[in-house]
């Protein structure tokens, strides 16, 4: 297979600047290199001072690191984003409909759109949620949809994140930083604002309150300050003006959730939880969880408190369900998906398995239930040895893996030690679902800083960029 040409976000195939990058390119070529270098340093200093760090698992405890920030934005044309946002909205409405269905009538299973065992046998399918009605029928209040662009410039959905997607604080801080360092860029063109995200999130959570609660008390539930995303939990709580609580701050009595305050117990109506299902309630899930709240699940099932996101959303974003999302959209809305999936081989299918084992060097093979880029093989950059080891793992449990063609991933000019050079990026828009589906324009752009690397995860040496939707 001949190497696919690279899609460059700033330049077209002939080397001309794409229209939506004109203003930035103009600025870049007229701004002295020293000023840019100076501002890049200023950005690093400021991020350090504010303490926008993330903890790295597996390194000595308390390791705090900065996510590298690159000042060249990922610019998206307004019309492109408008189309994209319709596609995201369609997808998230379908996934919410799917979640409601699999925990109620299971019409989609009766119709045979997906195999029953893929859903009911999935470890993320929560029997505790069967028949439970959640306010507004909304399960994924906050979703992060990972998008990538292939060589043809077409966006594809790489992954849905419907559990506790993180990263939105970087989106907000990146924008703040860019406006501070380069205000002239923001007066040169109309860049759609993003800083109202916390207000939108608060509104979404208010709308999710149990029936009859007009002035809900909302909290953000964090696993604590050793968690890698603790900065974000604290940031969002502060921006929304709500309490940031740990499991031990909450208790349940008579199927009602209270937080312990200096003025006595105070009732809690909506919990924006950033703890996985497994750790939420030691009485319902993992009994060894020290992070959760005993009895929380009981209060939730009784409709006395709303959890956002709902329990059991993992069954809709699992990589083994992902290949069926286009069919899910067709089933509920009788519409064609507006944003396509990346073609996916399911290794429990013998034909797919045979093909994948033949073509390991061209494909990306992923664990169906992994995250963070740890359990994957990137074929083209792998060694023969790595492929052999992965082949064995796949053969031991083919149902645990999926494979996809290696997308070339679009590249965006990025400052490197050797000057500006193209680096691969992806895009994670955050989708909020309340009475309607809402977003802030754009999303979090992640960039693989190592040359040729396709892995953008911050835990694997990725960085971030500001994302501009320009009109």
């Amino acid at each position: 297979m001949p190497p696919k040409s690279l899609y460059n976000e700033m330049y077209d195939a002939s080397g001309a600047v794409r229209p939506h990058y004109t203003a930035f390119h103009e600025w870049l070529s007229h701004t002295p290199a020293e000023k840019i270098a100076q501002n890049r340093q200023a950005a690093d200093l400021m991020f350090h001072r504010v303490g926008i760090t993330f903890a790295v698992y597996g390194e000595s405890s308390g390791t705090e690191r900065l996510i590298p920030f690159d000042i060249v934005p990922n610019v998206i044309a307004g019309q492109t984003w408008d189309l994209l946002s319709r596609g995201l909205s369609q997808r998230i409405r379908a996934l919410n409909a799917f979640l409601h269905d699999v925990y109620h009538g299971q019409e989609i299973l009766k119709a045979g759109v997906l195999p029953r065992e893929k859903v009911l046998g999935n470890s993320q399918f929560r029997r505790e949620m069967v028949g439970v009605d959640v306010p507004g029928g909304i399960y994924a209040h906050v979703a992060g949809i990972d998008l990538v662009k292939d060589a043809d410039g077409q966006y594809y959905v790489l992954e849905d994140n419907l559990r506790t997607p993180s990263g939105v604080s970087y989106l907000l801080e990146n924008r703040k930083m860019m406006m501070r360092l380069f205000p002239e860029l923001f007066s040169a063109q109309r860049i759609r604002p993003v800083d109202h995200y916390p207000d939108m999130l608060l509104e979404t959570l208010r709308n999710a309150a149990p029936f009859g609660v007009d002035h809900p008390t909302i909290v953000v539930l964090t696993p604590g300050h050793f968690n890698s995303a603790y900065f974000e939990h604290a940031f969002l709580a502060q921006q929304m003006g709500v309490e940031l609580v740990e499991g031990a701050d909450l208790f349940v009595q008579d199927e009602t959730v209270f937080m312990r305050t200096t003025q006595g117990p105070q009732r809690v109506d909506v919990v924006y939880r950033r703890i996985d299902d497994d750790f939420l309630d030691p009485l319902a899930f993992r009994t060894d969880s020290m992070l959760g709240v005993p009895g929380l699940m009981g209060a939730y099932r009784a409709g006395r408190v709303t959890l956002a996101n709902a329990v059991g959303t993992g069954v809709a974003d699992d990589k083994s369900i992902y290949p069926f999302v286009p069919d899910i959209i067709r089933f509920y809305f009788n519409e064609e998906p507006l944003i396509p999936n990346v073609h996916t081989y399911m290794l429990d299918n013998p034909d797919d398995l045979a093909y994948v084992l033949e073509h390991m060097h061209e494909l990306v093979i992923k664990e169906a239930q992994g995250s963070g880029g740890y359990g994957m093989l990137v074929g083209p950059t792998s060694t023969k040895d790595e492929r052999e080891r992965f082949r064995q793992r796949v053969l031991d449990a083919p149902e645990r893996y999926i494979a996809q063609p290696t997308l070339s991933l679009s590249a965006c000019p990025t400052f490197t030690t050797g000057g500006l050079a193209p680096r691969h990026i992806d895009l994670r828009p955050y989708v909020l679902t309340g009475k309607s589906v809402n977003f802030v324009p754009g999303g979090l752009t992640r960039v693989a800083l190592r040359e040729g690397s396709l892995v953008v995860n911050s835990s694997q040496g990725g960085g971030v960029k500001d994302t501009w939707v320009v009109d």
Partner: protein
Amino acid sequence: MLSRTASLLYWMSRYVERAENTARILDVAYRMSLLTKDSDLQDQEWFAPLNITGTLFPFSGRHSLVCAKEVLHFLALDADNPSSIYNCARQARENARTVRGTITSEMWEVLNATWLEMQNMDEDRMYAKGISSFFEWVKERSHLFRGVTFGTIRRDEAFQFARLGTYMERADNTARILDVKYHVLLPSVTDVGGAVDYYQWSAVLRSVSAFESYRKVYRDTVTPLKIAELLILRDDIPRSLRFCMRDVADILRTVENRISLEATRQAGEIHASLQFGRITDVFDYGLHEYLTRFLLSTDRLGAEINSSFFAPQLKPADEP
């Protein structure tokens, strides 16, 4: 405010205040030891800081000998001593990190910078800096933190609980420092009222920065009775027991909740006895006995504050 947040703020301030007072106690012990020529007696002086901070037992579990070097290390730098200055700086910073959204960024930055510098401190660096300069530095960081707190934070519950911690810890520490003379032996009975006695008492005064105040208030030579009066019963000396307990009682009235009435009552009772007490009665009762009783009553109050505001066993039994 979340109970956990209130508790973290309260202890954050207690740790800062404790670090400062430990530095004060060690500084006095160090100065006193310089006054004594006899090396046996010199080592004697170093029992006092251990007695005051209540750490003689854990110390002797790990050291056979009480001497300047060992005690200084144990109380200032030892990572295994939970109440060393080192660990107070660590704990205060850790608490601040957890409640960063509640305190001001200036408060965080002071504690963070203090800890970063403390982390790099070892015996060699401490001696190179000079023992007294090291204690000066600890005191200055504490002053800075208090100043930044007063100068930046909103007058809300967070401010009240942070102050509550400061005054509870300070009352405890002043009582312990004042009791030091009970633990420090004079060379012989005939030395009572002598030069060594005088220097020891004035060292107590200096350790709580009250020497100048004493001169202004009494215009008299230093006597134990007046020193005790100054540090126990005066309400215009910021480290006196009465001053601290007045603020504790005030704060508890401000943050009062449905189950904190007993804490408010206890604080009021302690304050009243300081407000209306006479120093001659204190000495008739015995200074050491009086201070011991005071420490017991503030311990009880601390436990009451804990169960009224911070404790996990709050139940919404009387929820309206």
